[in-house]
């Protein structure tokens, strides 16, 4: 049913887009058909796939690096209280600094290649994952922890069976926010450093007023965003099977 409503709404969106293109002017807002044709052209030229591949490589390497750093670090900060209390002020300070501020520094250090871009994605994605994992471990159910203690469970078992699974919903939220910011930073990185990928095409078509092509890229980015969050939502619902439906 939801799928049907979603399709109906998509139809309404396209209708609204079509009406807007008629009233505002086709040179500013291309018609859906023109956009589709531009999309087919970009696809057959191979430029779309190449750019998408470049962007995905940047995004995925940055995002996975962030995940592998943030989850263990956040879990450790929650599990070892003195360690967490020492670091958390700095983490929150860094999270509040606009990460774009670091781009010139990253370029100086890492150049303009994929390493620099992936690192900019990493910078954006790492904080929400870290902060949410940390919060999730700290929010461990005290009553369950005491129950586990009463069975004679050692700290390691309490952590792996009670604390960590309890923190998973928090981690999942962090991953979703991290993925969104990571995608934004992918485009930002591609605009700031050597202009490549979907961000590069966005700049190219935007600056030359090729609006149909420009729209194709915007829609592509939206689709990547949707697919990414749906995958994470699916993993989340698999992990949360025990929740009452």
């Amino acid at each position, binding site marked *: 049913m939801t799928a049907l409503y979603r399709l109906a709404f998509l139809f309404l969106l396209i209708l609204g887009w079509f009406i807007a293109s008629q009233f505002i002017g086709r040179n500013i807002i291309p018609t859906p058909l023109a956009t589709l044709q531009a999309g087919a052209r970009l696809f057959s030229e191979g430029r779309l796939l190449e750019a998408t591949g470049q962007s995905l490589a940047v995004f995925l390497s940055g995002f996975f690096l962030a995940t592998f750093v943030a989850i263990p670090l956040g879990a450790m900060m929650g599990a070892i209280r003195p360690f967490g209390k020492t670091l958390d002020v700095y983490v929150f300070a860094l999270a509040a600094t606009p990460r774009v501020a670091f781009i010139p520094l990253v370029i100086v250090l890492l150049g303009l290649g994929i390493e620099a871009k992936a690192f900019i994605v990493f910078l954006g994605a790492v904080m929400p994952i870290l902060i949410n994992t940390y919060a999730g471990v700290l929010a461990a159910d005290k009553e*369950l922890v005491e*129950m586990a*203690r009463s*069975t*004679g469970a050692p700290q390691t*078992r309490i952590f792996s069976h009670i604390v960590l699974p309890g923190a998973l919903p928090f981690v999942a939220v962090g991953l979703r926010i991290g993925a969104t910011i990571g995608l934004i930073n992918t485009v930002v990185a591609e605009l700031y450093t050597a202009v490549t990928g979907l961000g590069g095409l966005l700049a190219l078509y935007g600056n030359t007023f090729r609006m149909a092509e420009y729209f194709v890229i915007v829609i592509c980015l939206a689709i990547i965003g949707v697919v990414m969050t749906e995958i994470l939502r699916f993993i989340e619902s698999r992990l949360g099977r025990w929740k009452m439906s």
Partner: protein
Amino acid sequence: MTEKPSQPALEFAGVSKTFDPADARPAVSNIDFALPQGMFISLLGPSGCGKTTLLRLADGLIAPDSGTIAAFGAPPRPGPEIGFVFQSFRLIPWASVAANVEFSLRSLPLSKAERTERALHWLEKVGLSRFAQSWPDTLSGGMKQRVALARAFAPNPSLLLMDEPFASLDAQTRELMQAELLSLWSEQKASVLFVTHSVDEALLLSDTILLMGTRPGRIVETLTVDLERPRDPDAIRADTRFIALRQHLSKKMRELVLSDPQSDFYGR
């Protein structure tokens, strides 16, 4: 654990515990009692008199400020020798019913297969074998309580600490569970320290009742229940000795609540 039969399952000597140093009144003060092996003792008292605190002390989950506690002659340590049924169910929501029961077996030197077998055996005993693979959230309150009972009994503890385990159940389920508990207890030969604020429940189940008062939490009376077992819940309510004990305890409980300056009923 080596245990001489003469050794009490649990012994408190001059035990006091204060949570808040700013509060002059300890949560429990100067507690003295012994639970002989194989006996069933109930702690009866109004809300806030420190019943849960006594159980946590008895399990070694918290340490006393003064006095000594011994379980089978040694300071208590949380583990499979002491079973704890909590006031709330405390089931792990992301583990199946069977895995919840297995959790308390992990501290024993058992293989995975042995753990599973023992957990299923206990689920059968509490009538829940069909729900072994269910999630705890899909069970009713009474069923969750039975899972918690199975989890506490599964490691064969020599001492069972039970904190108002049946308080949240309806009257019918409670009676069934009380009968179930008594049959498990007589089979397992465990010693039980049982918390309740129901006079009837204390009289039906216990050998001895420790009546507690508030502020500070203390034992105000020790009462032996001289009613032969097995006790039939319907027959026993008509027994004159039961009625006399019940009247006495109810009156005492009322006085304790009315004389508590922190109670809303103070001085009425």
